[in-house]
């Protein structure tokens, strides 16, 4: 068991420093090069058959990038510290950071790899949206990818100007789009006007996504060279006479109908996360974000963290990103890897979270509720000291009370509750606030420092996460004589442990029921969410609680 004497005891463990990278596109190659450059052995796994298939077309990027990519491929191929596995299927992943076991098939062969960390660098795919526009592709109606492909041929460009062709683009009516898609459109538009005199580009567009490097300038350059933009909030009318499309809409400013019969109509494409993300999320036990990218929208995860220590999500695996953003992710990952893996030996706290093996009945509640994937089991639950973030959600969920968190054991917390309440002078309403150290505790300390009015009988109890607040802490507080109890968590979506706020809210809802049964006024218990920069709100909420119960 943990005692205060051995609480800070550290132990040295050996960890594996090999790194598995999933996805051999630009981001994966760049990561392999940088990580191997740091001295770690890299296993680069790609779904594809041939040698590293970098993001197939690089989405219309210019020739100089193709050269950079070729050089990168060469560097990766020639690096003895990088092992390339083609045609890979990831079958399972077990273990903890510093000691993952990955089972995979490569070229039909089953392999088992031991790695210290996993970097997911899956690519985005570009898919046509003609079905949403209700249009069939033809000689005259083409996808953006096909048009980009055509543009790379000099013959095609020559034909464009010699025949004084018009090209119309439809963008932003089938989806919201992104700066990366916008860059492709702007590049194509510019290529048309730069092909020489004659060809004209018309762009029918909803929101122009210029929030990327140099896009506003690119937009202006295109217009200066003759491209014409129609900014619409509704899809223009498209009629298809024989196979020639006609695009028309009513312009409210000049109050007239504008009709264009383009020689080529180019349809935008959706840039969507790799389909494999869903499967990888399941195997690696990492959260899938709202749009199918491998990262939730939570500032604690940015830039490259997943919910599990030792598993990083980079480039287009976590969002629609251009190559420079992908490179930024790579360097952030290298920093994190160096910190995690070091030279292969690691000092970890011996008793960060401790399972009492006598009490544990291997119900696996903790395994399921741990948001960091830090728990595995032999015949009893085992908590990895490398992966554990000491949020204490497991400790509060374990039906056997078999888990204790160092510094926040049940005994210590109950003691603190008792002392805090008896510390309040008689006469002042006794208010106990369980404060998450990431948010409410900071806000509360700031409120005191800024001299905001606070209840005299307010006492804060620090918890590592609101998810550590047991129902029985709340009930003990009332039994010990608290007049009011507040459980103060991070805002939903801002919990460092993702689900701590949710667990806390559930428990408080249960506590309300219990209070009702015992005849304690529900108003005496409050669940609040706050951020660290909300000192005034902290003070206001505490004062209101005092008024309510006083």
């Amino acid at each position, binding site marked *: 068991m943990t005692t205060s004497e051995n609480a800070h005891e550290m132990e040295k463990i050996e960890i594996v420093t090999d790194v598995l990278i999933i996805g051999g596109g630009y981001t994966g190659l760049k990561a392999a090069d940088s990580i191997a*450059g740091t001295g770690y052995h890299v296993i680069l796994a790609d779904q594809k058959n041939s040698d590293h298939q970098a993001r197939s077309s690089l989405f219309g990027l210019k020739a100089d990038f193709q050269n950079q990519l070729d050089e990168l491929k060469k560097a990766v191929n020639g690096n003895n510290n990088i092992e390339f596995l083609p045609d890979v299927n990831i079958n399972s992943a077990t273990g903890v950071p510093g000691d993952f076991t990955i089972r995979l098939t490569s070229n039909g062969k089953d392999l088992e790899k031991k790695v210290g960390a996993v970097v997911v660098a899956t690519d985005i795919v570009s898919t046509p949206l003609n079905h949403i526009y209700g249009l069939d592709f033809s000689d005259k109606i083409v996808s953006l990818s096909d048009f980009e492909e055509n543009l790379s041929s000099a013959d095609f460009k020559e034909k464009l100007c010699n025949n004084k062709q018009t090209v119309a683009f439809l963008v932003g009516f089938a989806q919201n789009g992104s700066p990366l898609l916008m860059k492709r459109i702007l590049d194509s538009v510019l290529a048309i006007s730069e092909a020489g005199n004659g060809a004209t580009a018309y762009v029918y567009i909803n*929101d122009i996504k210029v929030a990327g490097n140099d896009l506003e300038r690119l937009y202006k350059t295109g217009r200066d060279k003759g491209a014409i933009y129609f900014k619409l909030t509704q899809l223009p009318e498209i009629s298809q006479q024989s196979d020639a499309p006609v695009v028309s809409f009513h312009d409210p400013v000049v109050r007239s109908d504008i009709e264009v019969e383009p020689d080529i109509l180019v349809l935008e494409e959706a840039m969507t996360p790799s389909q494999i993300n869903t499967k990888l999320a399941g195997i690696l036990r990492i959260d899938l974000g709202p749009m199918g990218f491998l990262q939730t929208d939570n*500032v604690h995860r940015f*830039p490259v963290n997943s919910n599990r220590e030792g598993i990083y999500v980079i480039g287009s695996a976590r*969002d629609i990103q251009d190559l420079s953003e992908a490179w*930024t992710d790579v360097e952030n990952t290298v*920093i994190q890897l160096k910190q995690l893996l070091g030279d292969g030996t690691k000092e970890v706290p011996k008793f960060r979270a401790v399972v009492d093996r006598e009490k544990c009945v291997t119900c696996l509640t903790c395994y399921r509720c741990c948001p960091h994937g830090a728990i595995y089991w032999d015949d009893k639950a085992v908590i990895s000291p490398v992966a554990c973030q000491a949020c204490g959600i497991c400790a509060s969920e374990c039906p056997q009370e078999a888990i204790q968190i160092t510094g926040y054991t049940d005994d210590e917390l109950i003691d603190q509750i008792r002392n805090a309440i008896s510390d309040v002078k008689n006469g002042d309403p006794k208010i106990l606030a369980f404060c998450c150290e990431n948010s409410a505790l*900071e806000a509360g300390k700031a409120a005191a420092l800024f001299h905001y009015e606070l209840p005299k009988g307010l006492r804060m109890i620090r918890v590592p996460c609101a998810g550590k607040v047991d129902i029985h802490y709340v009930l003990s507080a009332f039994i010990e004589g608290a007049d009011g109890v507040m459980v103060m968590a991070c805002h939903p979506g801002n919990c460092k442990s993702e689900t701590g706020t949710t667990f806390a809210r559930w428990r408080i809802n249960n506590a309300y029921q219990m209070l009702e049964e015992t005849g304690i006024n529900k108003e005496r218990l409050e669940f609040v969410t706050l951020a660290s920069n909300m000192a005034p709100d902290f003070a206001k909420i505490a004062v209101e609680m005092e008024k309510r119960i006083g």
Partner: protein
Amino acid sequence: MKEKHIMVMGGGIAGMTAARDLAGFGVNVHLIEKSGFMGGYAIGYTCKATTECLQCGACSVEKALKEVTESPNIKLHLSTTVEAVTSENQKFSAKLKKGPFFIDPEKCNNCGVCYEKSPVKGAVLHGYSKNNHPLYAITAEGIQNHRDFFASVCPEGAISIDAEAATETISVDALIVATGFEPFDPNQKPTYRYAEHANVITGLDMERIKRDHGALVRPSDGQVPEKVAFIQCVGSRDERLGHLWCSRVCCPYALRSAQSIKTQSPEMDITIFYMDIQNIGKDFPAFYEACKNDFRFIRSIPVDIFGEENDRLKLRVFDEAEGTAGLETFDLVVLSIGIMPNPENQAISKLLGIKLDDDGFFAHNDSLNQTLTSQNGIFVAGTASGPNSIPGSMAQAGQAAGEVLKYLGVAQ
């Protein structure tokens, strides 16, 4: 490894993040901040959560400041500027001008008496975070005009009115420029009459008002406005001003703020005047749909703001369906000002011998790596190199730190 020293110029979120990341590898960091407080602009932003966090990133700045303050490997230099830099044998020598420090941080216990009793507003500045120590800073002008007051006001004896600036020379192996941006000055668009009308405010004013009052209120009367307009792209994407960039943060901050204000005051009527709405967060389609339900979007940017009785404001509103323009009255107008290059960039560029780009931000030497400057050993991060958000600046700072480690040959 031999001890390595780094200088980071600018204590905003970019500089703090780079410093923290480097300190994690045992590198000694000098973090140089011109003002009296660490944190840059973003330390002053309020939380924009509705019933849930909207991922504005403001609380990340609070966290970074805490980590920077607690790190033993980071030396904070407040009220400090870099006067000269020379380099020799891969070492940089930087001459710092420090202070004057009128408040002794060792003695000050942040009681706030000097601030509360100050004879004039503005003589004593207040930090925004509890991790700003000292929490207060006295301006040189304040001291000059009120010597007697400041000589005696502090119960801890922490104020010395005769403090003088000092110089210090430090030697470092590499440096990171993270000197940030300047918010667009709305007076450059005189037809918005920002200086004239109290209820024409900027996005930055909105943050200050929310912080001071706990809600968005009208500066003229302290009342919660019923009808609010946001005008987007003020100073950004403006050919006439030669600003050919999207500031990237003003769509996000305007819509997130609008959501959080609307949660507080559900009756409020909010209109967004815009050119194009940029993506916000990882689930933009859902967020944007919610915004379209809650606010009126008008795709045209008003050119003039006219005053009306009761400090209300009139804007010309274009009706797309009718093709006609009419005037409409609002209680408060928020100008969504954007990110401009720090006016000191020219001087810093000369001081360090690194290039600026066409827009006046620091140029990068590799089109795909924004942290490399035109000089070996000098790196750049955050809005010093162009418009960026808090998380974007942090990611760049991490990258810059990574480049520094590579440059120094610091392995694992």
